């Protein structure tokens, strides 16, 4: 039993926040010497802000870490609909399309000089934040790049090789990855990877040349054989009994990582930071191997300036400084997020970087390599919803005893309901 207050509050907030017209009022009017920045937690934008404070001590940056990337996008939506907007906001790639559909809510960065900088960024990454009339809504901060992090000590105990090259050879394809999992399970009786939904399906589906939408922006998720193949891989991993059934980013998943409950986890470049903070005692016990099935990308974020921002110029100065190729390279040095600026991919600081936590793996080279030969696909407004329903369907098979034979049809039905 709870009071009726929460409903009234929820409905009230819904109504009040919708009452104001979005995009009303021009920006500016701030002091130009400070700006408010909303980021998500766990991505360590604080390191970047601290570095900026060193360069521009005259500017005050008010950083708020809102929550997860999804929560940040929700807070931004509510703010855009009628609340107090930040001057600068970090939007995760998956959440971006819904905002790109409504460009009137953001400052067109071309008016601040984005045209001069556009060429610095990976073309296909930049494209995702360009709206229909060419408005540039955000500049990319980093890209994912993909790899697999594995526990060398657990691999050794299971009689598997531990050297990166030998591990690469274990899984040229996803089928081989699942077979390796079975070998590990047989030798140790323990789970090989954390879960089937993110560590197998979500990786494989980000390696396709065409995903949920076709290049002409039509929905094709239900008849795209590449999506179906990735989904089937996920179901296969879920039913093979090689997963720990721990949903990514949950407390039990973090605990399992620290305790060696699973030996391999998909690791886009920004994930290395997560592993480091979740399992600090496992330093030196990890290796990084190539992702099965070739290149791909998971993640990456964008910095955008809402239209009603009070200090758009101060926010833009920050973007220009910190997201320049040199700024991103320095940020890579601090937290390991892979730059979205290809001009630094040959830079010695990146190519020769080694990560002691991951047995001196050449992280810069591994992740930039994983982006080479990448075939970019269009990400549409419903991509996040579609992806979530596919994930849910595989999790259902893995953790709730769902029927693998009907999993695909269930997912399609749920997607149709969800996107109308």
């Amino acid at each position: 039993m709870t009071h009726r207050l929460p409903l009234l509050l929820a409905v009230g907030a819904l109504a009040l926040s919708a009452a104001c017209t979005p995009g009303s009022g021009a920006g500016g009017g701030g002091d130009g010497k400070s700006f408010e920045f909303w980021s998500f937690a766990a991505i360590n934008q604080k390191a970047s802000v601290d570095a900026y404070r060193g360069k521009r001590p005259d500017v005050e940056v008010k950083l708020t870490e809102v929550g997860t990337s999804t929560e940040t996008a929700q807070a931004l939506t509510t703010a855009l609909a009628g609340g107090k907007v930040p001057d600068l906001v970090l939007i995760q790639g998956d959440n971006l399309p819904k905002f790109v559909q409504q460009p009137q809510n953001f400052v067109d960065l071309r008016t601040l000089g984005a045209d001069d900088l556009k060429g610095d960024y990976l073309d296909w990454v930049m494209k995702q934040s360009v709206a229909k009339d060419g408005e540039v809504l955000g500049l990319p901060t980093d890209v994912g790049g993909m790899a697999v992090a594995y526990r060398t000590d657990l691999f050794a105990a299971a009689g598997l090789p531990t050297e990166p090259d030998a591990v690469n050879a274990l899984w040229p394809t996803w089928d081989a990855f699942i077979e390796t999992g079975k070998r590990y399970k047989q030798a140790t009786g323990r789970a090989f990877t954390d879960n089937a939904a993110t560590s197998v399906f979500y990786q494989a589906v980000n390696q396709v040349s065409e995903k949920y939408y076709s290049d002409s922006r039509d929905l094709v998720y239900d008849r795209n054989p590449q999506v179906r193949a990735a989904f089937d891989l996920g179901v296969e991993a879920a039913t093979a009994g090689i997963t720990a059934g721990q949903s990514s980013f949950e407390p039990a998943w973090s605990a399992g990582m620290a305790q060696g409950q699973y030996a391999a986890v998909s690791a886009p470049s920004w994930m290395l930071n997560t592993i480091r903070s979740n399992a600090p005692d496992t330093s030196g016990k990890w290796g990084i191997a190539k992702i099965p099935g070739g290149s791909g990308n998971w993640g990456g974020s964008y910095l955008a300036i809402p239209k009603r921002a009070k200090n758009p110029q101060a926010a833009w100065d920050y973007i220009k400084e910190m997201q320049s190729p040199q700024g991103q390279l320095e940020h890579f040095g601090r937290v390991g997020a892979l730059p979205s600026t290809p001009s630094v991919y040959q830079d010695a600081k990146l190519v020769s970087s080694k990560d002691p936590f991951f047995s001196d793996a050449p992280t810069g080279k591994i992740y930039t390599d994983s982006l080479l030969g990448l075939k970019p696909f269009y990400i549409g407004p419903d991509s996040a919803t579609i992806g979530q329903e596919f994930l849910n369907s595989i999790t259902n098979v893995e953790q709730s005893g769902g029927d693998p034979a009907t999993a695909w049809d269930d997912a399609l039905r749920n997607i149709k309901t969800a996107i109308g």
Partner: protein
Amino acid sequence: MAITLVPAPRAAPPPLVPKAVRGWRERLSPYAYIAPFFVLFAVFGLFPLAFTFYVALFDWNPIGDRVFIGADNFTRMFADPRFWNAARNTVSIWFLSTVPQLLLALVLAHVLNHARLRFALFFRMSVLIPYVTSVAATAIVFAQLFDRDYGMLNWVLGLVGVAPVDFVQSAVGSHVLIATMVVWRWFGYTTLLYLASLQAVPLAVYEAAAIDGAGPWQRFRHITVPSLRPVIIFTVVTSTIGGLQIFTEPLLIATGAPLTCGAVRQCQTLTLFLYEQGFGEFEFGYGSAVGVALFVVVVVIAAINYLLSTRIRADR
């Protein structure tokens, strides 16, 4: 000699002469006194309510277009399996939490009302402790107790050879988990309500029953329960209204997909569905339609409450 009792002549009450209301100030001042509540109610109660009804008629993107679509959101809602799934979950969680809670509160109130209970005040106050605990703290503790891999409950089950139960990922398990949290949080509050009502029953009634040979169970059944009837109906109705709006508990225990409360929406309640549509999918119109449906159900239940309580008064 006979004594006649003659009632003393009663003094006539002073005549009630209404003071003439003079001027507009005096006529209006009562309204000024009650105004703050009604102004606040209009701003925070009535306006949002009316506005929700209005928004429900649109295809309303909070940061974009709004298109008038009439009752389309409602037709869509009645055909939406997710809506009915949420409604089923809500009823199931409500049932699992209300029935044990009220039974527990009944028994506890009966015991706490016992004449010879020592430290009665201490026990009466301590049942209220769960109620003043933050719901988020409750959720964190219960999620850990019921955890599949590291939970204490599964550890105990393991001792007797039962395989670990994944409470969050199964429909029944998650409903039991949420219901347990609700029971834990609210049973003390309900107990005190019952106790307050029981205090009005003269102890002599219990003593007389005991002398007539009624055992503890008979005293409970024939004295405690009947004298609590009105307040039992009150708590059933209020917990129904509260149960329909349960939100925080499922949101906090869900793993992986918080807004859907699990991969197959196994513990998604109506308010969680409303929130998912409004703030997850950015469909304000559709979310508002769910809010309107919820409002109608609550009004119906409040009306039943009114009817029942007036009938009880008439019975007396």
